[in-house]
């Protein structure tokens, strides 16, 4: 396959150049555009959930506020910090790959993965808390809380259950994407350790980084919309 490609392109070429591309820049541009388009599909995917959430929030304002206030904003904030730091380590890793700094690359990748696990760990803690409070939708769901600002009116548990259903689906899907991200970065770590990335070729790092930043941004939207929005009522 390579020799055939070499016959078509007699000039010396990067072994990472795939046969159907004319030159490395084209391959890079294609990979980058492909990842951006994929991220656009993810925006639409999460977008449906955000839409449903916003519509119900308008409809069941008080009940959703009550439910939101039971979230652990401190843990959520911790997770936000964790993710922002991990985006920093990702940026450092991409830069390191582009500048052939092997140690920095490997360390940044390892840190990114650790931070990813930290995020999941904190999330697991949060979910455990919700489970103990019987806020997980299902047969054992319970919700006894008054509507913020109206201490004599109890929130409607059915509406609160919708809140928590959306909460778990949104954060759960996000966590799933985090797990995939950790998987991608584990593979990137392995490739980096094998010396696969050079200043000429580090496209997987670049597009892996794009994916991680995107997952981070989804959280940047989730956190205020779910946790912060009714903190002070």
């Amino acid at each position, binding site marked *: 396959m390579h020799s*055939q490609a070499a016959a*078509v392109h007699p000039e010396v070429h990067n072994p990472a150049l795939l*046969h*159907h*591309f*004319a030159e490395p820049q*084209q391959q890079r*541009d*294609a990979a980058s*555009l*492909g990842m951006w*388009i*994929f991220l*656009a*599909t*993810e925006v*639409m*995917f*999460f*977008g*449906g*959930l955000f*839409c*449903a959430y916003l*519509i*119900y929030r308008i*409809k*069941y304002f008080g009940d959703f506020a009550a439910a939101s206030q039971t979230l652990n904003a401190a843990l959520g904030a911790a997770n936000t910090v964790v993710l922002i730091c991990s985006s920093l380590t990702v940026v450092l890793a991409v830069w390191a790959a582009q500048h052939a700094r092997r140690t920095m690359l490997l360390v940044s990748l390892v840190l990114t993965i650790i931070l990813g696990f930290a995020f999941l760990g904190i999330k697991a803690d949060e979910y455990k808390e919700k489970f103990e409070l019987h806020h997980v*939708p*299902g*047969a054992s769901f319970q919700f006894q809380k008054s509507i913020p600002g109206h201490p004599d009116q109890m929130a*409607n548990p*059915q*509406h609160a*259950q*919708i809140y928590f*259903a*959306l909460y778990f*689906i949104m954060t759960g*899907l996000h966590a799933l994407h985090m797990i995939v991200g950790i998987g991608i970065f584990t593979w990137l770590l392995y490739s980096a350790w094998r010396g696969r990335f050079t200043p000429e070729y580090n496209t997987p790092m670049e597009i892996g980084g794009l994916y991680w930043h995107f997952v981070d941004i989804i959280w940047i939207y989730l956190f205020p919309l779910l946790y912060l929005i009714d903190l002070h009522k």
Partner: protein
Amino acid sequence: MAIENPQPERVNYLNKEYGIGSWLLTTDHKRIALLYLISITFFFFIGGFFALLIRLELLTPAGDLVQADTYNKLFTMHGQVMVFFFLIPSIPAVLGNFLVPLMVGAKDLAFPRINLLSWYLYVIGGILMLHCMATGGVDTGWTFYTPFSTAFSNTKVIEAGLAIFVAGFSSILTGLNFIVTIHRMRAPGMTWSRLPLFIWAHYATSIIQILGTPVIAITLVLVVAERSLHLGIFDPKLGGDPLLFQHLFWFYSHPAVYIMILPSMGVVTEIIACFSRKRIFGYSFVALSSIAIAVFGFLVWAHHMFVAGISVYAALVFSLLSYAVAVPSAVKVFNWTATLYKGSIHYDAPMLYAFGFLGLFTIGGLTGLFLAALGVNMHVHDTYFVIAHFHYIMVGGAVMGYLGGMHFWWPKISGRLYPEGWARLAALIVFIGFNLTFFPQFILGYVGMPRRYYQYPAEFQVLNVLSTAGATILGVGYLLPMIYFLWSMRYGKPAPDNPWNAAGLEWKTASPPPTFNFDQEPVVTWEAYNYEELDAPHREEVPVAG
């Protein structure tokens, strides 16, 4: 008896490697296109079989062929299979996959392995669907409205939902691949304005695929979650809103119909240009119309909900926008017709399908105006009028375009010529059978026969019988190409590189093409649809790669 080739056979993408492994692990877009061809044809006949049973039941007013529950499963699965496993992939996954790289002058799509992955996702979705059908099926209607689908149906809603979810990713990846290919892989000299309109059509289609499909994906996730965990997102008894489901569902499913028709429009454009021997009239307008349809198509979803309980003002907005989206489609019909003017017209089978498309799509599109009219919609919504309308577009439009394209590019794909006489006969049979099947349904709808009914008042019987008669004729028309295409693979005349003397880079390479499409990278120095040059024998032929 096989016809002997005068020369030893050239190496092409078909004979380069043999063995099932070379097919199942291929990254060649042309082989993947054939893998899709086999799978979607398989599902087409499954969906068609369900249609046959439906039409047989509807021969008589009483529900006497199958039980009510069975009938409900039949129309549900007919819809799901035809929409998600036939129409949505059809042209993009078969003709698009095969032709997009060739038409832009590339060696393959941007992401060949993702292309193969998209086929496997389709197959996995298909297997899930088959399993669902074999173990009880689903009876929610292809639209699976809540709360029936989430809280009342006793059938395999979750499995069907998962099957469609997986197949949806196949669609997304195809769209992604096409967009990147069209942006980044065009050969030198292939500017945007030199692209065949088939490419513009697929570009517009791909935009819809990547932006719309994720929304049905998340809707399916919510439905599956609600059904399995007894949540209340769409169930009024638990505080949910069934109309929210409909908005989310139709936000994708309306643009989805443009996924189904735009590629067909692209095919028809190529055929009309070739068999009129002239450049398409109004190239820029046709190209922009495709984009306009894709964009406006996202703004009209609630025209499926005029009597669903939305506010009058919302209905007004969506009706207005629905008329806006009708304009670019009308513009295309006029441009196709104008292309015929002062052309040099040939009546080969692909052109017959294109003519059929023109007539049937016009009727189907015009009946869309009826449905977009709020006052009429109140009467014909959820009746056979709607069924007739969308079958005119989907079958009279999309499938005619698909068949026309299969005939037009068959020599390129297979290296063989199909038998022209049989092909023209099949086109005629399809056209007659189609009209007989579906025109009576407009009348049936206006006099009040609702959708999804397996028993009906006796006064509706005559029209139903006509429709069933047409369906049997249509079935014959569809079987014929199956038979003679297969026949041609062994006994058909070997095809020259360019049997139609058509414009387009795909015709400048061998039939069938070599694995990497072109022996040398093409350099484009001519405009699209250069039929004047192609038909001018005294002019020196423009230097061509290979």
